[in-house]
Structures are given as C-alpha cells and as structure tokens.
C-alpha cells in the first residue's frame, strides 16, 4: 500500500468525525497562529526595536572612557582623571577600523538649562557636529531649526523646549560644574529642536558643540567618552577585541551589552514567559489530539483489525493513524498562518506606540512591532505538524501492535 493512498484514506477519515476534527484543527490553528505571531513580535520588539533603539539612542555599539570614569557617578563625569585629552588622533584611528561606521567623541556633564528664572536638570552633551552627523540620530530627529554649525548653539529635545516655551533663536542658559567644581554658565541660542520620542533624550539631554562644552566645564580640549557605531550588532565582539588591543592599556572599552543589562534581563524574562505560555498551549493541543486519536483507534479497532486481516502491515496501520493526525496538523497550521498572519501584519506595518513608557523607565522602548522572517511560516507549520505527530504517535503505536483476533472480537 503506497503512502499516498494511505494518506488519502487518513484525510477522508477526518470527515467521519467532523466535529472532532474541526475542534482539533481549531486547537492547532490557534496554537500555531500564536506561535507565528510571538516569534515575529519577539524578534521585532525585543531584538529589532529595543536593542537597536538602545544602541542608536543611548549606548552606541561600543564606548571607551578613562579607567577613572564611573558611569554611576554622574557628579564626577567632569573630573581631571575622567577626561581624555588628545582625543582627535584616537578618533581618526578608530574611524579607520573595520566595520566602524561612525565615532562620536563627547564631553558629557550633569547640568541645567534654563531661561534665567527656571531651570531643568539635564545631561549637557558636547559633541563634534560633523562626526555626530554621520554617527547618530540627531540629524534625522531634528524637527525645527538647524543642526549645530560653526557658530555654536544648543539643540534641545521637544519636551525640554515645550517646558520653557523655547523656540529656535531663543537664548538658553546652560549651566554646569567645571572641572574645578565651580558653577559655570553659557548663554547659547537654540539652534534646533529634535524629537526622538525617548523621554530621556527629549527632556533631559541637550547637545552643544564640544568646544562650548569644554569652555563650560573648563576642560581644555577634552572629552570623557568616545562612542563607536558599527555596521551590525554582531560586529561588537570583534570591535571590542580590536579596540582593547589598540587602546586597552589606556582606556576601558565596553560593549553595549554592559549598558543594556536591564534591557537584556527584561528580554530574557519575557522570553521565558512566552516560551512557557507557548509550551502550555502546545501541551494542551498535543494532549487533546492524543486523546482524540486514542478514541478514534478504539472506535475503529475492528476496522483496523479487518485491514490487518486482509493484508495491511503493522507500519501501514501505524501510518494510517499518524497521517490522520498529520492531516490535522497541516490543515490547522495553514489556518493558523492566517490567524497569526493578520496581527503580525498589523504589528509589522502599523505597530503600537509605546513611547509613553519611556517616561517611566529609562529604556528606549518606543514601539511594539513585529519583524517576521521568511522562514517563520515554515517554523509555525513545523510546530503544528510536529505537535500533531507526537499527539498521534502513541495511539498509532497502540493500533499497530493490536492482535488481529482479539481486535476482531471487540464489540
């Protein structure tokens, strides 16, 4: 008996107990649809959106700083031991390295911006506008005004600008502590207003020229951090090794993962939750199919015994049962592709604005999106088929092992 013929009998058997088959197909359809949705959602939201946003808006792929610099001690960001002098040749060297797409030397200091009456605590970030243009996000996020140019000025986030009612051209007071721990003040025109939807940037960070920052902090010609952007996230390990080899004796080199521990922890926790949830759903589907197939075998025991009596082999009976459950898997998975495909498509092309969350947590979780891959439908169908295979396996083994004479006597 060839497999095609056995499969056609199995498929026809589905119609014999239509309601049962429909319920099993529904169960598999929902499970594989959810699986399809969740793998795209996890890849889109956690890997693509959160990690890429974090790298782009917060950490870059790699950071370098003096060994005395401590990220947790904001008040010591601008201290004599924390700054890096003679940074331009270092930057040029890094720019020539493999896979490096951008380098941004920055002088970052805790400070205030204000209008002469009120003030807001911010991180004052001095940057090289030309290097920053190729490096980061500010240029693309600019909504009003112009980018920093040779005349200086300050770039503010939308939320900070709205608090003071600043418009392009207004004068902004930028205050910070110098390297000698004395307060200093610069009055700079607002050159541009950007909006990234990341609260930490839009409200609590301002960008000025690096020479203005050095003037403000009285640090000469220094920076305290060098941010490095690479072609791909996966290049980070190799880049860190190369930078450590070149500069490891003078600087600490840290990959983005060092700064993203909270993000990765949350990603892992959520991943475990989704995995447990999907496992439970699969378990329920598999046990439902197993129960159904056991009953199918029991109900058709005389029929199968008759088939054996007329010459069917054990493995053909085995296949008869397994193919029936596989047919449920195939049909259910295909329907599941539609059920899971619709929300996946919505999340891929529209998504869900989650930027409000950045007011609560200092992570750039801007949108919930899906990023499906071409192989996701194959994975979802495989999950459906494999789970139905295992659901039908034990009943098939039972059916194939029956003794013909005993089975024929069953009422």
């Amino acid at each position: 008996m060839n497999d095609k013929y056995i499969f056609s009998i199995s498929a026809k058997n589905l119609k014999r107990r239509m309601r049962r088959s429909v319920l099993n197909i529904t169960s598999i359809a929902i499970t594989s649809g959810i699986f399809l949705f969740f793998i795209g959602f996890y890849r889109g939201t956690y890997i693509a959106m959160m990690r890429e946003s974090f790298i782009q808006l917060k950490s870059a792929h790699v950071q370098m700083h003096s060994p005395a610099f401590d990220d947790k001690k904001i008040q010591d960001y601008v201290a004599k031991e924390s700054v890096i002098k003679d940074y331009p040749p270092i930057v040029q060297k890094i720019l020539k390295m493999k896979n490096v797409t951008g380098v941004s030397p920055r002088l970052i200091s805790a400070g205030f911006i204000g209008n002469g009456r009120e003030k807001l605590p911010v991180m004052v970030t001095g940057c090289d506008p030309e290097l920053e243009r190729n490096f980061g996000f500010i240029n693309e996020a600019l909504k009003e005004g112009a980018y920093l140019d040779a005349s200086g000025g300050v770039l503010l986030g939308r939320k900070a600008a709205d608090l003071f009612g600043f418009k392009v051209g207004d004068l902004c007071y930028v205050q910070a502590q110098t390297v000698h721990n004395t307060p200093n003040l610069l009055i700079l025109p607002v050159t541009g207003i950007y909006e990234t939807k990341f609260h930490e940037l839009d409200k609590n960070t301002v960008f000025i020229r690096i020479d203005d920052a050095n003037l403000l902090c009285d640090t000469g010609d220094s920076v305290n951090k060098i941010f490095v952007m690479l072609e791909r996230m996966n290049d980070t390990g190799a880049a860190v090794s190369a930078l450590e080899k070149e500069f490891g004796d003078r600087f600490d080199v840290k990959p983005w993962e060092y700064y993203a521990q909270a993000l990765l922890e949350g990603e892992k926790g959520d991943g475990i939750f989704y995995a447990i949830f999907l496992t439970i759903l699969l378990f329920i589907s598999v046990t439902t199919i197993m129960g159904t197939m056991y009953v199918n075998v029991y109900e058709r025991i005389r029929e199968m015994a008759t088939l054996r009596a007329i010459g069917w082999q054990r493995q053909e009976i085995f296949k008869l049962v397994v193919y029936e459950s596989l047919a449920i898997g195939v049909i259910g998975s295909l329907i599941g592709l539609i059920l899971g495909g619709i929300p996946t498509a919505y999340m891929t092309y529209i998504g869900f604005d989650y930027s409000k969350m950045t007011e609560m947590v200092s992570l750039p979780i801007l949108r919930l999106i899906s990023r499906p891959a071409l192989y996701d439908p194959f994975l979802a169908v495989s999950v459906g088929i494999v789970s139905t295979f295992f659901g039908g396996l034990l009943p098939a083994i039972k059916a194939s092992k029956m003794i013909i004479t005993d089975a024929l006597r069953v009422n």
Partner: protein
Amino acid sequence: MKITAKVLFYLKLGARNILKYKKRSLQVGVVICIGGFVMTTMGGFTDGMYDKLLKDMFEGTSHAKVFRKGYYEKQEISPLELSIEGYRGIIGRISSAGPGVKISPSISAGTVVSFKDNSLNLVCQGVEPYSGKDADLFPAYRTYAGSVREGRFFKNNSDKGVLISSYAARNLACGLGESIILFTADSYGSFNAVELEVIGIFKTGYKDKDENVCIADLQSVQGLVGLENAVTEISLYFNNLKESESFGRRISGIIRENNLEYMDWKELLGVFVWALKIGNIFNFIIYIIFIIVAAVGIMNTVLISIMNRMRDIGTFRALGFTLNDVSAMIITEVTLLGIIGSAIGIAIGVGLVYYFSVVGIPISDEMKDTMGSFLSSNRIYTTLKINFIVFPFFVSCLVPVLSSLYPLSLMRKMHIKEALGFL
C-alpha cells in the same frame, strides 16, 4: 425524585463516571488545573506587583494634589511664579470640606547644595510633615522618616534643618550636624542662598529619592525662594483612595476661585496608570487565548465522552430520565472535574505566589536603576489577594461547563431509539 436526592444521585454518577473514564477525566482535569494555575500566578505576579508598587508610590505621591493652574506641566522647572498664595486660608477651607482629609503644603525647588568644595544638584522639598489637629506624620513622608539612618526626622512643623540622603552625604563629604548651603534662583529673579544644619541622613532605596532629593523645613525654603506666604503644592491624603476622585468635585468652588487645579492619583501617576492598563489588556488577551484553547480541548473531550456513552444515555432515557436529568448529570460531572482540577491548580499557584510574596523575585541593580521611581529594593514582591483565588476558581469551573454545552446540544437532538442503537 426529591431535589436533594437528585443532586446527590447526580454527584454520585458524576464521581463514578470520572473514575470510570480515568484517562479522559485526567486529560480534562490537567487542562483545568493548568488553567487555574496560570490565572492564579499571572494575577498574583502582575496584579499583585502593581498593587504593591502603587501602595509604595502613594507614600511618595499622595492621593491628590492641588497646584496653581499651569504649575503641574512645568513642575520639573520649578516655576515659582505659579505658586499658591494665601495657602493657609485655602487649606482651612479644604479642611472644612473634608474633615478627615490629611493636608500638607510644600515647596519644590531645584537647588545647588554645597559643602566646602563639593556641590550637588538636588531638588529641595520644603515641607510641613505633620498635619491635622493630632499632628500626625503625613503619609507621603513616611518613607523618609522610616529610612533615616543617622540623626532624626523633623520632630514637628517648627523644627528647622535639612535631611539629605546618604548618597548626597557621601558626595558632599559632609555629616550629621554640619551646615550645608542651598543655592538657587528665587522668585524675584535673583540668586539666594540659605545655610541649614543637616539633622538627618536617610536612605530610602528609591534611586530618584536618594540621588535627587533633600528635605528641608518649609519656612527655610520659603525664605530661600522668596515665597513667604506661598507654596507650590498642597498634598492630600484620604482614608479611602476612592474619595480622592470625588473630593475634587466637592472643592471645585475653592479650586476655581483661587485659579488652582486639582489632580487625583490617576492623573498624578498618569504613566503608571497607563502602563497598568496596558498590562491588564495584555493579561486579558493571554487569559482569553488560554481559555479558548482549553475550552476547545475540553469540548472535544466531552464530545467524545458523550458520543461514547450514547447507548448509556439512551438507556437512561428509556428508564424515564428526562433530557434535563441527563444534561444535569453530565454538567455535574464536568463541574466536579472543574472543581478538583482548579482546586489543585490554584493551590499550586497560591503556593508559588505566597512563596514569592515572602522571598521576593531578585532583580539586578541595573534593572532597579532603570525603574528608579518604583523600586526601593533589589527584590520584587508579589501579593496574594482573595481575587486571585476566587476569580480563577470561578472561571476554571465555568469553562468546562460552557465547553460541554455544545456536545450536550447534540445529545439533546438525538431520539431515544437513535441513542440506544448508536454505534
């Protein structure tokens, strides 16, 4: 048959059928057990955690606040021109409208705090921490009062001085009893400074409080910012949280007359409430998906069970049992399964939630820092509430009953003769 005798009969038959069809009963029971477990643990972890976070946050936020109109949107820049003048009179009137309400005025101002060669940017809160005739400690300051490591909290509203965090003390290299200088721009547009004695050093565990805030007496801060008869906010605390929503309407006249605005806890914790809503929607979707898959599985099993017992059912019908009697028998059987399955699942879930309510779930320093305003320790604790037992139990018992309705409807369509001859 009398009703009690009938019910007992159904229960006996239900129990007998459960034991007779062990595999099927186990299958349904396991699904219900998992369902009850999932709902209890999800409720305990998410709702329980949110409730705990909310409770902790009220101690720092108050149930409601009154501001001068326009102040709240700009509060981060401390707009001193938007202060509440004549606040004592306003507090008196609010007190009359709500005698049980605790009220506390305060001023927030961004300052530079200096000690010798060291300085730090902090938000200074000028407070009157005791409220009411009995001079009870206002709940929003319990966190600070309870976390003083050295020195003391304010003894009364006339007590002068400043409390700083251990983080600030370390960075300023100053200690208890030493005088620090608070420097800021005042409401007249010039700069002003005040010297205050450090009377206490606290450590709350909340990053934003420990790294950004110092607490001083109201009078000193009023002098510092030039707001002698004004404050920037009036905090309210109710015996019952729900009162905060209606109290705003009760004092609407006072609010309007004085060009103020009233914000209850939902508006004050806007983002948190939004995140809570999103979390609840997500949980709801998970529950629904789970219920659907479980219901489909149970429906299938019950359908098979009924079809296999059709001849038995036909026999019962032939003996005089009505369709309702037979339906009641089957519903009793699935309900019993629901009760047993959900009891086991919920018991395991409750155990897990209780364990983590005592031991807590450890989180890293980085995660704690990311959630700075909401977490005071490196552990997240769940809460056990009766809702997380009753609701999952109810749903876990209901789902199998509802799942069996469709198979029962098929059974009801079958004539006795058909049922007796069913193969």
